[in-house]
């Protein structure tokens, strides 16, 4: 590999350069060790390999696939992708997925930050206990609650087979992680900033809107993306609640692959295309996510 070349001359002379001034926020200013690249390359390779097989497989015919499962397209075939894109099903599923993911993301971000704000910055009795309840939500897989949820959403709320019926429970299950991520983020915003805002004439709500929200944007983007991707990939709950035209992409993929079990290339194409919207969303927000996970603003 190309990464092997710099390895040999640089490995010996690396006397732990950043150990002395290891401030957690600052990444090493100098060149990172080539091993970092090697390791990253290995991880990336194994992560991307199955995805690439799928993407490239979509450009091959079933005959090509049967002959050599991991080969290169020869010739390149675009029919699989065109078929999927020209069918109405794919677009219908995409619309459902986008709508549900958007609803649940908005819900998660709005409710999450509203829940995290008092938990982070108000002093009140039982605050830690309340926070613990949110943390405990992390231990709860949605799978466990799926049957009661099905009953509640369809029977009580009459939201069976609707976008809201999926978005609401999904937002609820994404909330614990959101609060856990956002709370330290909001806590790290200096107290003086709040006091300055109070002296400048904002109340607690004004501080929330004018100072806290703009400052916590990286954090909100992070939890938003997590919620969006989580909702995008959700399978079990939509499987139980949605039928027919209301189904989301993952259900569509599953359906497609069982319907056209022999059309492996078609399944590859469908799967590949279903990843794209979430991928775009993720890539556009990527910078903010890194910022969000790094921590909050300093004063």
């Amino acid at each position, binding site marked *: 590999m190309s990464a092997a070349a710099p390895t040999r001359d640089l490995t010996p002379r690396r006397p732990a350069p950043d150990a002395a001034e290891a401030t957690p926020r600052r990444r090493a200013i100098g060149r990172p060790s080539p091993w970092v690249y090697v390791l990253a390359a290995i991880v990336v390779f194994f992560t991307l390999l199955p995805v690439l097989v799928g993407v490239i497989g979509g450009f091959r015919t079933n005959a090509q696939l049967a002959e050599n499962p991991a080969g290169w397209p020869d010739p390149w075939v675009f029919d699989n992708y065109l078929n999927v894109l020209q069918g109405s099903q794919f677009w219908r599923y995409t619309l459902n997925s986008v709508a549900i993911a958007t609803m649940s993301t908005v819900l998660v971000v709005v409710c999450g930050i509203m829940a995290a704000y008092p938990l982070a910055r108000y002093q009140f009795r039982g605050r830690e206990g309340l926070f613990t309840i949110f943390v405990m939500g992390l231990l709860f897989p949605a799978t466990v609650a799926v049957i009661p949820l099905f009953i509640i959403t369809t029977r009580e709320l009459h939201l069976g087979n609707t976008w809201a019926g999926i978005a609401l429970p999904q937002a609820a299950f994404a909330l614990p992680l959101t609060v856990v991520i956002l709370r330290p983020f909001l806590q790290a915003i200096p107290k003086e900033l709040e006091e300055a805002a109070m*002296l400048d004439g904002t109340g607690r709500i004004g501080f929330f809107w004018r*100072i806290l929200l703009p400052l916590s944007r990286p954090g909100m983007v992070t939890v938003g993306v997590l919620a969006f991707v989580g909702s995008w990939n959700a399978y079990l709950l939509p499987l139980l609640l949605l039928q027919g035209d209301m189904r989301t992409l993952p259900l569509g993929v599953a359906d497609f692959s069982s319907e056209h079990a022999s059309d492996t290339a078609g399944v590859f194409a469908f799967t590949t295309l279903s990843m794209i919207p979430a991928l775009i969303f993720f890539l556009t927000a990527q910078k903010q996510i890194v910022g969000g996970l790094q921590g909050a603003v300093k004063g």
Partner: protein
Amino acid sequence: MATVTYDNATRIYPGSTRPSVDQLNLEIADGEFLVLVGPSGCGKSTSLRMLAGLEDVNSGRILIGDRDVTDVQPKDRDIAMVFQNYALYPHMSVADNMGFALKIAGKSKSEIRERVEEAAKILDLTQYLDRKPKALSGGQRQRVAMGRAIVRQPQVFLMDEPLSNLDAKLRVQTRTQIASLQRRLGVTTVYVTHDQTEALTMGDRIAVLKDGLLQQVGTPREMYDTPQNVFVAGFIGSPAMNIGEFNIQDGHAQLGRAIIPLSRETLAAVTDADNGKIQVGFRPESLDLSSEGSGGAFPVEVNLVEELGSDAFVYGQLAAGTEGAAHISSGAGESQIIVRVDPRQVPEKGSHVWVSIRAGEQHNFSASTGERLPN
């Protein structure tokens, strides 16, 4: 413009039995620059925050002008505060930072712009108005924080150690800038610092606090010349005053070979509780080099000479053979004496010099209460 009055203002933090600020009584005149100074934990910041409305007042009152603001929201007190870390809003430009309070108050865009530009001109920030705080140096941020206060045209400025995040040189520069700006604007200012030099150089008056109790209020001159107790004496002045506990013998204060005459008034003020002892303080510059045997002279063994160009300070201790060298202390630590000497004629390290206290520049304090005794 307004006066500020602390009327028995007390703050007890929840879960604490000892008040952080204990019955503070203080009157600050209109347009005055008052400095609250004291060691850390003395309650100076708490006092300021009580005035700002950021801390509750558990008992007593605080007045701005004639208005009782004890239970008034911070935003309605017509004050502006400069924080130690400036507390600038990171996501707003300098202009937005400075105009934020006006925006909240619902002032028109043109008025905000006008007032911000005016303040920026005063503070030499005009070219930075569109920058974010992140892109400013420490000194510039400090000025923005000042600007944010000025723009509001408040009745009172509150400053909580606004210079402590600056480097030493810039601090000295900014110190004079703030002081002259305050004189120019004539706005009543309460300024908190732990640095007594800042207090002496900036304040019209200084209030020294310790353990939540007000020790003394006065002009820098008064604080320096007539400290009311041992604490103020040791706190104000740099290098600090030499203070020693002496025995009273035959109408003199005596410690080893040091014999210092005491006046009749001083002796009369000594009580039985003092147990025949008295605390005598003398500043490094109140000591004159003299010769052995002259009245009131005592020997000092030179440990170290610090030459500052304009001054030279001898750090030493009461010379060997003097019992009780440990009973005297100064800014340099236990059993140390600091003497200012002519920088052109400094004594050798390890030598002995004889010094005597210049008449009238000696401070006497009760050994039991630490209160000042008449000279």
